[in-house]
């Protein structure tokens, strides 16, 4: 099968993973022992490994596998020595070089030297570090391939009071600074020091690669120096982190032509609106507005088209993955793809590529025992896309999962006991949880399912696991069609207006208040012969819930597989809304998925009822 058309996709994705690898290693260097970062690093390496193996880029796959192994060793201790950090960075540079080779159609460069080299043991390194001088650092620097960007900072050196020949001391300090980097400015300047005899402190702006602690040590060794302090110019660092990634997209020319046409029509309509407005001709104005509305709908449709890509573009490589996997494991696995011509927003597609591959690998590795069928099917389900990865293998036993979770310390015995079967199945999505007895190249290290779930959640989708022992397992991803424009239901809540994504609402309810029963702290109502708990949206937001009249309004939604009602004060209709991401720190608030601006400039926030209910911990009381 021809993989060349996926090469570009691989290259851009791998580059992204490598970029985050380097960022994470740097983060780790600043906060050693941060296990989350180690886990994240591990996942990145794991992703590259999987993708490279699929594409048949063996050196890249081996190198990332090697890095992954290395990181795996530190996952439990949660502590990576600095020598390993260097080694990791070297490995990441090598990975980057490999990608360059692939990009330029060269054979992959040799990785053997790196793979057989071991990082210097931490103990040796510690012995060495105290007498590291600036000269040592310079040597290190020249041996590293890509030089780091030097840091600019401000240093303040205070001299001891009343020392003789303070100016001479000042000159000495400035010379020392010049040795370690570029002195951009200083106060006083070298010339001033030469002329005047007095000096109490020296302030300098220095661009240097030398670590501050070392510089401080060196400076303190100069006699007469009382104190050395640094004032950071953090803005520069921030700017460096914010380097944006350019993304490109291919658009069919006929689609572009349609954009030009639509824009032309819109311009004509603006003129009609202007004329109608200045003539105060309401009939004309109304009809022009109506027409403009239709044009905007067309434009919206076309914009979405640009963003849509068929699922095929990522499922195309699945057959190869399954083939290689079956060959390696000696299993006989048949892959079936259904409905993969369905169009999905580009961003969503990019984000679900890894999760989808992972689910398929899991199905082959853990689902199928010797022989079986893995089915990937996709289709529209109302405003959602449903993608399902199913196998007809051995299935998962909730009881085994509970035990496993208790054994690996993911949950306590009591928690496991009170867990529903459905929740028990979801345990496979917990970090550090793995059901595989042995580690294979592709899966079975408890990495992956947590990434899968997080990726789906970030897109505003849901993951559902259905499994029966002996029959097989189905992983269902439900994803929005587009993440920018969604259908929302506007509700009133404690005097405010809030929006709920329609995809989160199964239906709206108007319940006769008299039929709502109270049982302890819970309120219950009957629907389709089922008792359903009723919560209050206002209470999840720490707002007072107004007493309902004869009718209690609520939406029916689902939390962890349970149907629940969420009381609101009224419905204000539904509409399409352009969802804007919210700025910091609003983006940190659980249950807020964005905001939309109304025609009059008011801001309406979009809330995720499931996240709110989970946050409010009300559902766990059930």
């Amino acid at each position: 099968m021809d993989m060349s058309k996926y090469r570009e996709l691989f290259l851009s994705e791998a580059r992204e993973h490598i970029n985050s690898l380097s960022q994470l290693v740097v983060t780790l260097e600043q906060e050693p022992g941060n296990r989350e970062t180690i886990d994240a690093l591990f996942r990145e390496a794991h992703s590259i490994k999987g993708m490279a193996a699929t594409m048949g880029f063996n050196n890249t796959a081996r190198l990332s596998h090697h890095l992954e192994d290395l990181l795996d060793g530190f996952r439990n201790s949660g502590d990576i020595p600095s020598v390993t950090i260097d080694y990791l960075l070297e490995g990441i540079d090598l990975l980057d070089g490999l990608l360059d080779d692939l990009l330029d159609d060269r054979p992959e460069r040799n990785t053997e030297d790196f793979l057989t080299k071991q990082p210097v043991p931490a103990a040796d390194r510690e012995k060495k570090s105290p007498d590291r001088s600036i000269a040592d650092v310079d040597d290190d620097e020249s041996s590293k391939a890509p030089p780091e960007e030097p840091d600019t900072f401000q240093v303040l050196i205070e001299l001891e009071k009343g020392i003789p020949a303070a100016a001479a001391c000042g000159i000495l300090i400035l010379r020392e600074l010049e040795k370690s980097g570029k002195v951009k400015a200083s106060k006083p300047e070298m010339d001033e020091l030469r002329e005047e005899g007095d000096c109490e402190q020296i302030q300098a702006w220095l661009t240097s690669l030398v670590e501050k602690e070392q510089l401080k040590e060196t400076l303190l060794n100069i006699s007469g120096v009382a104190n050395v302090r640094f004032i950071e110019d953090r803005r520069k660092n921030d700017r460096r982190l914010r380097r944006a990634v350019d993304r490109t997209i291919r658009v069919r020319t006929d689609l572009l032509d349609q954009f030009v046409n639509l824009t032309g029509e819109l311009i004509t309509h603006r003129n009609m609106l202007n004329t109608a407005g200045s003539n105060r001709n309401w009939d004309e104005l109304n009809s022009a507005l109506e027409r403009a509305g239709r044009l905007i709908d067309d434009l919206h449709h076309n914009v979405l088209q640009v963003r849509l890509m068929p699922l095929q573009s990522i499922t195309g490589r699945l057959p190869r993955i399954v083939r290689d996997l079956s060959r390696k494991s000696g299993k006989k696995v048949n892959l079936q793809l259904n409905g993969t011509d369905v169009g999905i927003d580009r961003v969503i597609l990019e984000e679900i590529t890894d999760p989808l591959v992972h689910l398929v690998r899991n199905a082959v590795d853990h689902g199928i025992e010797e022989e079986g069928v893995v089915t990937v099917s996709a289709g529209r389900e109302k405003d959602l896309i449903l993608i399902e990865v199913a196998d007809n293998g051995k299935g998962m036993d909730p009881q085994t999962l509970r035990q496993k979770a208790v054994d690996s310390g993911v949950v306590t015995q009591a928690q496991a006991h009170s867990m529903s079967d459905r929740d028990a199945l979801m345990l496979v999505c917990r970090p550090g949880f793995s059901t595989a007895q042995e580690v294979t190249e592709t899966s079975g290290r408890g990495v992956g399912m947590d990434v899968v779930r997080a990726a789906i959640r970030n897109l505003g989708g849901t993951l559902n696991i259905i499994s029966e022992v002996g029959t097989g397992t189905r992983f269902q991803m439900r994803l929005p069609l587009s993440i920018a424009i969604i259908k929302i239901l506007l509700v009133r809540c404690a005097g405010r207006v809030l929006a709920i994504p329609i995809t989160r609402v199964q239906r709206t309810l108007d319940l006769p208040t008299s039929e709502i029963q109270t049982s302890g702290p819970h309120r219950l109502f009957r629907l389709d012969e089922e008792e359903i708990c009723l919560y209050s949206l206002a209470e999840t937001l720490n707002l007072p819930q107004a007493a309902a009249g004869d009718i209690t309004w609520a939406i029916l939604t689902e939390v962890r597989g349970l149907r629940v009602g969420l009381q609101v004060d009224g419905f204000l209709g539904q509409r399409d809304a352009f969802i804007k991401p919210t700025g910091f720190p609003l983006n940190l608030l659980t249950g807020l998925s964005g905001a939309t601006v109304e025609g009059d400039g008011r801001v309406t926030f979009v809330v995720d009822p499931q996240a709110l209910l989970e946050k409010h911990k009300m559902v766990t009381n059930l």
Partner: protein
Amino acid sequence: MALILTYSLGNDLYGLEIDAIQEIIENPVLHYVPRAEGVLTGSINFHGQILAVIDLPKLLGFAGNQRDHRHLVLTSEYRSLVFTTCGVERIVNLEMEFLQPPPDGHDRPAVRGIIDFNETTINLLDTDEVTKQLEDIFAE
């Protein structure tokens, strides 16, 4: 030389580089933010961007309820935060060479450095510290 906007927090004078400020807006319409409490007083629609309004004196633990109606909108480099203060003073032109690190025992919160101006001390706001505190509060 650098232009610094000075403003009061409690009885102290703080400063922020003009370069860090995108706009100063008077009496913006505050929109309700679900689950917002404490230092997050609401959000504003700033040319289509939805930004969080932070009660800076409250965040940094200054007493008193007086707030200036002028809000400082920071640039995107400073995550487009919007600050309310106890009182916006004026813009001064300062020699940044005189900026000193806060001396030991300086107990004012979130200060990147201090600089004397007309016998008053201007505390230059450490925006990183503010961001960090917000992260600590809102990260869940």
